[in-house]
């Protein structure tokens, strides 16, 4: 099956843009730390889509984009582990995961 023939690159970019901004809105608007973390994961995946798509459409004989997507996944996993550890500690400290209540670090 020839993806290139059936689905143009523009679709991929539009998809990744939509996913990215959904993630960004999640981070910006939701107050729950876990949900914000999910937004960040969405943004990372939007980037992954771009990597894979550009690699596949523009340089089909090379593999850097794929590898980069894999590295991003690994980093995302590590980041999720750290973030969840932080969130657990925040919960223990403040008894909440609402980001608006965690504002000790200010002027």
């Amino acid at each position, binding site marked *: 099956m020839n993806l290139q023939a059936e689905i143009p690159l523009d679709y991929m970019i539009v998809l990744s843009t939509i996913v990215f901004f959904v993630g*960004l809105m999640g981070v*910006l608007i939701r107050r729950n730390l876990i949900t914000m973390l999910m937004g960040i994961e969405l943004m990372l995946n939007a980037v992954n889509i771009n990597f894979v798509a550009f690699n596949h459409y523009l340089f089909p004989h090379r593999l850097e984009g794929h590898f980069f997507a894999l590295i991003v996944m690994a980093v995302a996993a590590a980041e999720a582990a750290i973030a969840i550890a932080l969130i657990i500690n925040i919960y223990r400290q403040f008894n909440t995961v609402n*980001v*608006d209540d*965690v*504002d000790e670090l*200010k*002027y």
Partner: protein
Amino acid sequence: MNYSYTILILLLPILIFLFIGLMGDKIKPQFSGLLGTSGLLVITLLSYFTAFSYFGHRVGESFQAIEAFQLLWLQFTDSLIIHLGILLDPLSVMMLVVITTVSLMVHIYSLGYMKGEKGFARYYAFLSLFTFSMLGLVLATNIFQMYIFWELVGVSSYLLIGFYYERPSAVAAAKKAFIVTRFADLGFLLGILLLSFYTNTFDFKALTDLNGLAITQPTTAVFMGLSVTTWAMLLIFMGGAGKSAMFPLHIWLPDAMEGPTPVSALIHAATMVVAGVYLVARLFPLYSYTSPDSLEVIAYIGSFTSLFAAIIACTQLDIKRVLAFSTLSQIGYMMVALGVSGYGTEGLGYMASLFHLFTHAFFKALLFLGAGSVIHAVHSNLMTDMGGLKKYMPITHITFLIACLTIAGIPPLSGFFSKDEILVAAFEHNKIIFGVQWLVAGITAFYMFRLYFNIFWNHTPEYHQAPHESPATMTIPLIFLAVASVFSGFVPFHDLVTSDGNPLHTEFHWMIAGPSILIAVVGISVAYVLYAKKNSKPESIATSLKGLYTMAFHKFYIDEIYLFITHKVIFNFISRPVAWFDRHIVDGTMNLIGNTTVYFSGAIKKMQSGHVQWYIWYFTSGVLLLVFLVVYLN
């Protein structure tokens, strides 16, 4: 001859100073006094031994300068090298004898005079420090080493003037002495830097070598109409004038009499104040060959100072102040003699100056110690509280009389010979200066005998307790110094200490000696008429000379002029604007920067709210803004 033992002359006093200074409160005061005195006795004997062996071994006709000890201290570049060492030549060996003798006498005398004083050990520690510095000064091989010891001498003088530090006047006097001499030393330092910059050496041997570059090829650079060499020599003389209290830098010396009297005898009469004379004598070939103009200046300053100080001395009531002004006057003589001198066979003035330095050290120390003995007995410095002391204090009386006759220039006492040589040298060079110095000789005789008659003759006031002769520790130095004052005139000085090391042929001139004896006798007679018995003549003369007398009594208002210049002129027109500039412009700029930063941080600090999502908003909008800029503005 091996002179390496002379290093002991320098090492012993500093070791004694350190020992007494550090251990002074743990040992008995009397012991530190005895230690200081016996240490100095050893140093004195070493110096005499050095002098005998040095003057006993002349090479051919003349004396050679010997570097007995030499140590490389600082090497900055190939040419900028500073040594520490010991230089023996007729000048320094002569000074060695003078300093150690007077210092030893003062040490012995102080055992009695300072007995029971608080800080007895401290006093001896400082005396040792002073002796060390002064010996280091005269033995220095190069001008930089001399400068170091020069400052050390200034410090120890400061410490000793301020010995009675509970007394505000002593503290003020110490500060005044230090600041005035330090100000003069600024000139000295500039002079050293200028001189060594153009001659590439600090070494006295190289500087005063007649075939050396410093003399054969003086710099041709000119600054404000005078050659740079002359400037350098004048600036160096400024340092010497500060230490030797030449007009107009003399103001510290009369106040320095706040120190203990033996200190005045040692530092402010016999040794430190002649450092300026020594300095000019040390660099004399340089003065003589490269800048005769500055020698003229020295002669006039010396002459003016000697007249000026002699007039003031006639009006003072504090006996130590009379002696202080007399010291100024006599150092003026020495400066005059250097100023009118030439080099080599013309070097009569040079020889006379140092001869006078030599004899003056003894008789002036004797005068001060005698005055100290009187003050010890009467407990007052004012001659109005004294009188008729000759029957109470026979030894002090006789020795004081000898000293007065010596300074007045009565033959065959030593002062006559040295003053006569100076007058001869002045007569050959400049008749005006000769006239002034001849007149000063008369005034000197007058004020010294005014002092003498007021203390020992005149009417006897009501003493609270009858004055008594001082203890033997005080009278023995008096007797020794009196003997030295009588006989030091017979030292064949023209054979020993001359400008080029060769014996100098001198003649005795009745044409000069006759009038100088005459005016001295006139001065003494006038003093006898006015002061031998209580009468109203002195007051009536003072009233008839009202203006002049008041001026002289107030030391011609020089102190007031200085205060006016510093407080009114410098403070108001320089210091205050500078302080204003510092406070408002310099500080203001810094405050402006600081305040602006604080203001803006206050305005924007609310952005750091602690709400993470707001930060993400700022960040995202910033990125979007950048993207817009890049995409649409390109």
